[in-house]
């Protein structure tokens, strides 16, 4: 009993419970048909949310106002860069991934420069830079119809015992991110800055270097995500990352990370991503129209956040 009680006290457990309930509702509706396939598909799609969600989590943890709105444009550009560099040939996969990573890191570093040098609030800085990145993507990726190299496309679909290899990689990555957050100087510094930037600075934490690293990290993860998405969906497109603007923020917050900063939660991101993906799957199996699907998604997000409650008032 004690074990259950300590488990229930974890903030991230609720997102997993939510995911489970949604999955049960969906397979009850189908009469048990496709229960396993649903999980396989959900795991694949959730990985993409987890990757950008973790980047967004580190940014949001930096404190109030810190958020990366450039992710969708970043993902779109990186998907185009990856496809163009790989050019459909298996031998160029690694180079293409590195190019996508570099493109993402460049966007992240540019975001930080806008915030630091020009002193623009992060929301507006990442928003304006996303406009510019979007334009670069439109001009660069015009008429781009390069298929991913076969080996890369296959890789994004490999399954081991019904578990997509991407999901396994995603779990390992989340585990490493959890260690970086809780056990490494970098993560502890991010948390300290989020709790009180001035106190962190007085304590000798290199505040600006950590912020630079965090925005670059978020950009880099967006870049990797773009390349993987292009492999999974068989090609790059300008709007491939659009849904990740809202969902990256949503999984962070539903997963138990504080939007006020200084308190982060990695496992919750996995739970929240599974929850959101399974929620969409459930509404799809119910066969509801697009309007009803959006309506219910919104109501459930508001309902979940109301039930989970906000943070206690700041001291």
């Amino acid at each position, binding site marked *: 009993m004690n074990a259950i009680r300590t488990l229930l006290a974890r903030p991230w457990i609720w997102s997993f419970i939510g995911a489970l309930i949604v999955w049960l509702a969906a397979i009850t509706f189908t009469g048990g048909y496709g229960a396993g396939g649903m999980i396989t598909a959900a795991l694949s799609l959730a990985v993409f949310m987890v990757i950008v969600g973790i980047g967004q989590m580190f940014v949001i943890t930096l404190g109030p*106002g810190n958020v990366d709105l450039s992710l969708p444009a970043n993902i779109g550009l990186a998907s185009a860069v990856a496809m163009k560099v790989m050019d459909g040939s298996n031998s160029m996969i690694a180079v293409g991934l590195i190019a996508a990573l570099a493109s993402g890191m460049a966007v992240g570093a540019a975001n930080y420069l806008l915030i630091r040098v020009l002193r*623009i609030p992060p929301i507006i800085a990442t928003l*304006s830079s*996303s*406009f510019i990145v979007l334009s670069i993507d439109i001009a660069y990726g015009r008429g781009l119809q390069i298929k991913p190299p076969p080996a890369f496309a296959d890789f994004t679909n490999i399954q081991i015992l019904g578990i997509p290899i991407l999901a396994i990689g995603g779990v390992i990555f989340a585990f490493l991110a959890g260690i970086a957050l809780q056990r490494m100087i970098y993560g502890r510094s991010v948390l300290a800055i989020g709790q009180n930037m001035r106190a962190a600075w007085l304590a000798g934490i290199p505040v600006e270097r950590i912020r630079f690293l965090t925005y670059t990290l978020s950009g880099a993860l967006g870049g990797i995500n773009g390349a993987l998405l292009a492999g999974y969906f068989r090609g790059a497109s300008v709007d491939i990352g659009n849904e990740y603007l809202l969902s990256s923020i949503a999984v962070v917050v539903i997963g138990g990370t504080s939007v006020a900063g200084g308190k982060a939660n990695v496992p919750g991101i996995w739970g929240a991503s599974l929850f959101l993906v399974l929620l969409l799957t459930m509404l799809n199996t119910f066969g509801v129209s697009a309007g009803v699907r959006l309506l219910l998604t*919104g109501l459930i*997000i508001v309902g979940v956040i*109301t039930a989970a409650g*906000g943070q206690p008032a700041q001291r």
Partner: protein
Amino acid sequence: MSAVTSAEPAVRTGWRSPAFARMLRALLPALSLALILIAIAWLNPRAISYFGFNLMLNLAIPIALATIAQMFVITVNELDLSIGTFVGFVGCVTATWLRDAPLLGVIVLLASIGVYAALGALIHLRNLPSIVVTLGMSFVWQGLAILMLPKPGGKAPDWLQGFMSLKPPFVPFPVIAAIVIALGVHFALMRTSYGAVLRGTGGNAQAIRRAGWSILKTKVTMFALAGVFGVLSGMALVGITTSADANLGNGYTLLAIAGVILGGGEFIGGRVSPIGAVIGALTLALAASPLLTFMHIPPDWQVAANGAILIIVLAARALISRREADR
């Protein structure tokens, strides 16, 4: 940050004085608008005419109204990520029910303002992050809009179309509308005593509470006002486009935030400026298309030019604020 400011020399008179910096900061939104107007006049002198302004600024009215709605929410340190889809939803109601069954349309619009007020109460009572709640609501409004108008269509009520295409003598209608909106909201928020309480909720909620005011009431008021201006924005938009589409207002969420910040507002502390916000919205509306078309910027790069304009104006403001902080 404090290390940077203390390194500046303490010259306190003339053009380096904090007072001058403050004035410059207040004037910056107007200056950037003037710069854009000069650029347009230089590139195409014929645009600076009654007809030209009517054409260029037509869409600025709904943007300005949405910006004011966002400004109310930002005043109490919250953020509304749903204003864009809300404008789209209102547009759909206006183009269907408000025309065919006016009573039902009015009831639905009033109810949606009620929803906004309830959101303010919910966010305050449960201490929820407004970003997430309004994020969820953006799906709700979009879903409702798609349910009402699965395909673009509908038709704006004739009286609304007539009102939006008014041709007053000498001064184009959008200019008059912008001035009325800016001055009206400025008076209510900046010049009345309850307006000071509302702004104080963003500046120092505890002080306002100890002075005996209800924070719940101020937050509900501000969210309800945001709803009212969202409704006005949606109606104005449909009055101009004459038909509606569920995705009509999607771009307005970020435009409205940018407009508030461009106009000198800040995300926290209740520091906002209604006149600045309207000017910010006009600047964005002008910069969005006419300027770029005149400059022969290819369509691919128009979005980038928009972002660059935002960055330049905000960077200029940051430089001025740095000097202002040097007190």
